[in-house]
């Protein structure tokens, strides 16, 4: 209704200039009907729970593969989830906690601290990239940063295995190599995903906090030693 009024007004406005009032208004008006609301035959309500869980797990696994082989695809950005980051974060925190839990002293990085470092660190990086003018959404960035901890978690597992063998110079060298490699991998993978959404002249400014974030995590992993 208001549209026709608007058109009328526009037409009368035009008629003041040159066009006659009785020009017929023609055209097709296509209104999207409510069929958009309905999923076309695809319903997840009556499928077994196992399928649902497996599908979600497969999605998470797919994203792990994306992180391990970071080619420039937007799958990690398009359908973000926070399950993978939560899983990785909890695993890492538990592994770092493990050595100190059974001893009396409250030493070593605590579960909560690792947890807080990871989440608050990613939130700060995300806010920083937003402030620098990035076009990525908040949770997309959290998702990418969380998934890119995967190499570091793998490095942590390797470190635990190496530490079982003994802690000498050789073991430290092996751990240093593994952690450095995985730190580089994490930084590279996350920047491959994140940098595209940034203004081209400011990539270095966005990469620096990411570098610092993974550096601190990698350094915590490297200096971890299970207490006897």
């Amino acid at each position: 209704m208001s549209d026709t009024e608007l058109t009328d007004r526009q037409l009368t406005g035009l008629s003041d200039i040159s066009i006659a009032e009785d020009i017929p208004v023609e055209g097709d008006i296509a209104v999207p009907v409510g069929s958009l609301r309905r999923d076309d035959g695809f319903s997840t309500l009556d499928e077994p729970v196992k399928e649902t869980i497996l599908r979600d797990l497969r999605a998470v696994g797919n994203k792990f593969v994306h992180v391990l082989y970071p080619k420039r695809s937007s799958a990690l950005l398009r359908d973000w989830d926070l399950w993978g980051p939560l899983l990785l974060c909890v695993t890492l925190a538990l592994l770092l906690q493990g050595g100190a839990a059974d001893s009396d002293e409250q030493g070593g990085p605590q579960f909560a601290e690792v947890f807080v470092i990871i989440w608050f660190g990613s939130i700060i990086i995300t806010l920083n990239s937003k402030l620098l003018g990035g076009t990525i959404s908040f949770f997309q960035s959290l998702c990418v940063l969380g998934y890119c901890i995967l190499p570091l978690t793998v490095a942590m597992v390797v470190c635990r295995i190496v530490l079982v063998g003994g802690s000498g110079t050789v073991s430290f060298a092996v751990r240093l190599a593994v952690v450095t490699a995985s730190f580089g991998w994490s930084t590279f993978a996350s920047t491959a995903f994140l940098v595209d959404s940034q203004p081209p002249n400011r990539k270095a400014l966005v990469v620096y906090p990411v570098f610092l974030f993974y550096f601190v995590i990698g350094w915590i992993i490297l200096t971890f030693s299970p207490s006897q």
Partner: protein
Amino acid sequence: MSTGSGNRNTNTEPWGSFDDNLIQGGGSAVIDMENMDDTSGSSFEDMGDMHQRMKEEEEVAAEAAATEDDAGEDGEFLGMKGLKGQLGRQVADEVWQAGKRQASRAFNLYANIDILRPYFDVEPVQVRSRLIESLIPVRMVNFPQKIAGELYGPLMLVFTLVAILLHGMKTSGTVIREGTLMGTAIGTCFGYWLGVSSFIYFLAYLVNAQITMLQTLSLLGYGLFGHCVVLLITYNIHFHFLFYVLWLLLGGLSTLRMVAALLSRTVGRTPRLLLCGTVSVLHMLFLLYLHFAYHKIVEGLLDSLEGPNLAPIQRVARDVPEMTLNATVRSLGTLPVVR
């Protein structure tokens, strides 16, 4: 379906809350009237209102039913419809309010981000040149020097300093108490940056210096670059002589740069002395503090934590036979020391 009707009513009528109360009272009456088909016992105004509402709901229901294909039955349960509509309206109202609150909060967050965005409007080259300039004092005190009002560099420098401090604490033998160290490091760095900036700003306000809070934050933040370099080197190479040289050289240079900038923006001998003396003393002592006292304090803290950790238990055990009350009081008294 009911969400739509609720939204619609609250949107179109500004007296929604008053009306809702009215309708709450008459909720059961609607059903009765539908069953008995009697209009006595209720004012006509209410009835008119009811019918209008019911018609509206019917419309909404019809709209919804167009997608659900079972439009025929809805007309018969108008009474139930009304009750359901009211419930739905209340719930929808609450949901809508909560949603509005949350949305406005999120909007505020984003608005705040937009407010902060100009302060992060830098290029990598600018940051690099400002980092280098922070170690080059400019001997120009007659004309106000330019101080960039920017927060990216200072913020990143503070985070870097936190990481370096953590590293220093770990390598200085305080391997345990990681989390406490993390919190302490963050608290120290941010506390120094924000606290001293506010203090300088306050002093500058007192002595009538031309500087804004933003410029203070930026100046002091970039001044931390020298600290970062010195601490990164001296935490890894343990020579006291090297530290003193670097402390005087890099710390002195960054302090001189801040002092020169402040000098050029202050008028008068006493104000200059006051402001610049405070800044240089605070800045130089902070570096000393970070290098020496910090991990010593932490180590001392650890000693005091580990020492009395066992002591109160022993003391309580020993004192129990003598006097229970006294022992508990004493153990209570020792608790704050432990904490």
